[in-house]
Structure formats: structure tokens, C-alpha cells
């Protein structure tokens, strides 16, 4: 077929252009494709709902700007969810590129709650290098690992930290992570050792790695990538950037599937037809 010969020699930049247009179009003109809340996401919502109102929750945001489209919607909704339950939130960051980004996202959400004060209802302890070593040190005292918060304040002097000693002070760990160090390390070093219940929001590329933890009950809920973030937004009745991105996501996936089928069709033609 002459059409297939043309496709075989097609400049791949045409594929980039088509993919770009397919992603761009629904962002400008939404299709409102249906979305359902899956069990791993419902588990995440339920775990936070079960935390007693007013308790102090540990939230570790382990990502940097490359994770913005997937991680930031999860962070926003989870932080809003916790503040809405009057929980106090202690935030840590184990990725060097993350603390400024995380601080701006949290501050933006905190502005929606005028009665919530920094240092009283939430604190961003910022970044600390050491990966798993930091997690282990936190087990001996959160303030030992983070003597000062991201804004340079003495963390021991902050009201939100007065009743926080170690992992036993928290009923739940909410981990939003892009990779290493992240969910795997929190499970290995903290959930397994200190038996701290945890939920995780992870990038789609790493999500398959964490389903065994969900099946074993080591994590109570899992948000996988932008789809997980969009489902979480739906479960909370929000319409954030993840929900808005899901139409583009669906069209992009359809195009990739179409390209795979077409590529196989072209490559699997008889040798004489290809020559």
C-alpha cells in the first residue's frame, strides 16, 4: 500500500505536532469525559477522613518542579483536605528542588483558610539532605532532624511543634513523591519500623511499583499520577488542574495506542511488500 510506505518514512516531528495539538485542544475546549473514583484513591480519601479532627499529621512532599503536573494537584487537595478537618500539618521535603515550590503551593492553599496560621496550624520544615538517614533521625525526634523550618524559625519554638516529638505523634503520614527518596523509602524505613499508617501519591511512571504495598496493606491508599490526582479532586468535589488535564491525557493515550497499532501494521508487512 502506498499510504503505508509514506507512513514508514514519516518524519517523527509530524507525530510531535499531532500529539501537541491533541493535548492542546481539550485544554482550551474541554470535552468533560467521565471519570470514576477507583478503590486505591477511595482508600486515600478514607484514610484521611478517619484521622481524628484536630490531630497533627505528617506530610512529606518529595518532589521538584519536574513533578508539578502530577504532584501539585495532589498536594493542594490533600493539604486542603487536612486543613478542612482542622488537622495541624507538619510538612517535610526530601528533594532539594522542592522546598520553595512546596512552600508556594501550601501558602496558596492556606490563604483559603484565613483562620489557619503558619507555625500554629501548619509548618513547612523544608529540605534536609540524607534521604533515608533523615527518616531514621526523625524517628528519634522530628526537631532533631529539622532544628529550623524553611523560613529559618526555630522549629522547637513553634506552637504546632510543641506536641510533636517523633513518629508516635502522628496518626498518619501523607507522602506525595516523585521517586527516590519517596514512598518506597518511607515504607521501608518508617511504616515498617515505626508502624506509622501511611497513604501515598506518586507519579504515574512509578505507580506500578507501589501497588504491592497497597495490596499488602502497608499503604492505605494510592494516587497514581494525574489520573489519581483527578480522581482525588472528584472525590473531594473539586475541579483542579488534574481534572482539567484528563481530557488531554485521554486523547494523548488514544493517539499513542493508535501509533503502536499502526507501527506494528507497517513493521509486520511481508518483506517483499516492504521492499
Amino acid at each position: 500500500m502506498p499510504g503505508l510506505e509514506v507512513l514508514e518514512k514519516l518524519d517523527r516531528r509530524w507525530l510531535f505536532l499531532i500529539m501537541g495539538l491533541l493535548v492542546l485542544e481539550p485544554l482550551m475546549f474541554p470535552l468533560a469525559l467521565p471519570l470514576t473514583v477507583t478503590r486505591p484513591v477511595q482508600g486515600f480519601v478514607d484514610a484521611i477522613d478517619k484521622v481524628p479532627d484536630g490531630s497533627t499529621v505528617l506530610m512529606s512532599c518529595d518532589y521538584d518542579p519536574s513533578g508539578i503536573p502530577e504532584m501539585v494537584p495532589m498536594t493542594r487537595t490533600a493539604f486542603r483536605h487536612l486543613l478542612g478537618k482542622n488537622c495541624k500539618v507538619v510538612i517535610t521535603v526530601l528533594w532539594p528542588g522542592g522546598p520553595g515550590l512546596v512552600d508556594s503551593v501550601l501558602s496558596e492553599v492556606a490563604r483559603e483558610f484565613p483562620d489557619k496560621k503558619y507555625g500554629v496550624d501548619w509548618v513547612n520544615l523544608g529540605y534536609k539532605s540524607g534521604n533515608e538517614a533523615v527518616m531514621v533521625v526523625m524517628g528519634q525526634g522530628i526537631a532533631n532532624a529539622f532544628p529550623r523550618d524553611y523560613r529559618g524559625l526555630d522549629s522547637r519554638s513553634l506552637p504546632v511543634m510543641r506536641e510533636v516529638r517523633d513518629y508516635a505523634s502522628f496518626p498518619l503520614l501523607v507522602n506525595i513523591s516523585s521517586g527516590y527518596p519517596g514512598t518506597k523509602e518511607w515504607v521501608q524505613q518508617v511504616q515498617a519500623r515505626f508502624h506509622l499508617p501511611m497513604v501515598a501519591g506518586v507519579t504515574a511512571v512509578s505507580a506500578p511499583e507501589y501497588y504491592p504495598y497497597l495490596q499488602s496493606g502497608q499503604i492505605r491508599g494510592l494516587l497514581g499520577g494525574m489520573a489519581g490526582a483527578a480522581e482525588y479532586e472528584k472525590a473531594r468535589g473539586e475541579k483542579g488542574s488534574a481534572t482539567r488535564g484528563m481530557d488531554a491525557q485521554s486523547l494523548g493515550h488514544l493517539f499513542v495506542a493508535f501509533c503502536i497499532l499502526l507501527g506494528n501494521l507497517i513493521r509486520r508487512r511481508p518483506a517483499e511488500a516492504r521492499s
Partner: protein
Amino acid sequence: MSLHLSHDFGIWIGAVLTLFIFSFLYKDNPFYKIAEHLFVGVSAGYYIILYWWTVIVPNLIEPLWKQLAHRDLWTGQPLLQARPGLFAAELGDYRGWLVIPGILGLLLFSRLFGKIGWLSRWSLAMIIGVYAGIKTTGFAQGDFVAQLQASLQPLWKAGDPAFTINSVIFTVGLISSLLFFFFSREHKGTLGVFSRLGVFFLMAGFGAGYGYTVMSRISLLIGRFQFLLDNWLGLR
């Protein structure tokens, strides 16, 4: 739909650099190179400042200063509650030990001076030893034992056919996938059948992994487009 262009200089820099990076999709060009080199340079500077102010100062210099000078590092006010000196073990204060990681950290820089470069191996040995220990115990507790326990589930549950089917598929998939990686015997006969079955389960796993990877990559593109449309152009 109308345009509301951003008045934020930072947003404009971000948008222009995004377009510079996108230009690589057409072909390599000087605009892409500018963005790439700028990223490397800014990242290096950012990391140095970040590590200094969020790790070295609060976790090493400040506690040591308090112990040695018995004064607050920032205000210069004398500290009343603690005893001066490097150690106050009876007060539960072991900050003096921080001298050791401080010295080990400095030894890493000995690589810059040829003849004494070997000193950095002490620090590296410490780092490798500590991390090997932490990783091993973490893996044993969090993965090996916990996952083994979770894999030992009943194959049959009265009145719950969905659970039974799921358990059987899970167990057959687990065993056949493990047998695929058993290389001490040729994959023939029963072992061959099970290892071939294991390939199907592995392929299903790879397929799910590929689908999730595509989702992650498209998410990155969506994120940049959302930034350009919402934050930069202000399309509403």
C-alpha cells in the same frame, strides 16, 4: 475566550524558556542550548545555597557554635540554659559529636588536593557503610518480610468467588513469574509451561508500566501547556 497576558516578569522568563526547550522538538538550536546551559548553571548555584542554609548551618554550624561559644549564632545573646563546652551528656546533649561528621565532610574535599585525596575514602567508607546498613534493614522489614507475608493468602473464601478467583490468579502469577527466573534447569516440560505462563504475567506487568509511563510523560506536556495557557497567556 480572551487573552489576559501575565504582568509577572518571572512568568515571562518561564514561558520563554519553555518555548526554547520545546524548539528542540524541531531540531537542536542555539535557543535550546541557552535554556539548557542556564538550567545547569542556575541549578548548581541554587543547590549550593540551599545546602548551606538548610543543612550545613542549622544542623552543623549553629549547634556547634552554641556549644563552643555559648551564644546564639544570630543574636549573639548568651545562652543560659546549657553548660558551655562540647559535651553535656548528663543533660542529654551530645551535639559535640557533630565535630566528627563535620570533619568527615571536610575530608571529602581532599579529592581536590592530589596527594591527600585518599583521605576522602574514609568519608566515603562511612557513607557507604551507613547507607548499606539502613537499606538492608529497611528492605528486610519493609519489602522482604512484609511482601512475603502478604503473598501468603488463602486461595478459597466461602461465599466470595471474586476473592477466590483473584487469589488463584495472584498465586499462579506469582509462582510462574518466579519460575521464569529459575535458570538452574532448562525451561522444558512442566518448568517450561510455567515459565511461559510467567512471561504472560510479566508482559501484563510491563504493559501496565508502559501505560503509566506514557501517562507521566503526557502529564509533563499538559503541565507545560497549562502553564503557558493559564499563567502566561491568561486564557479565560
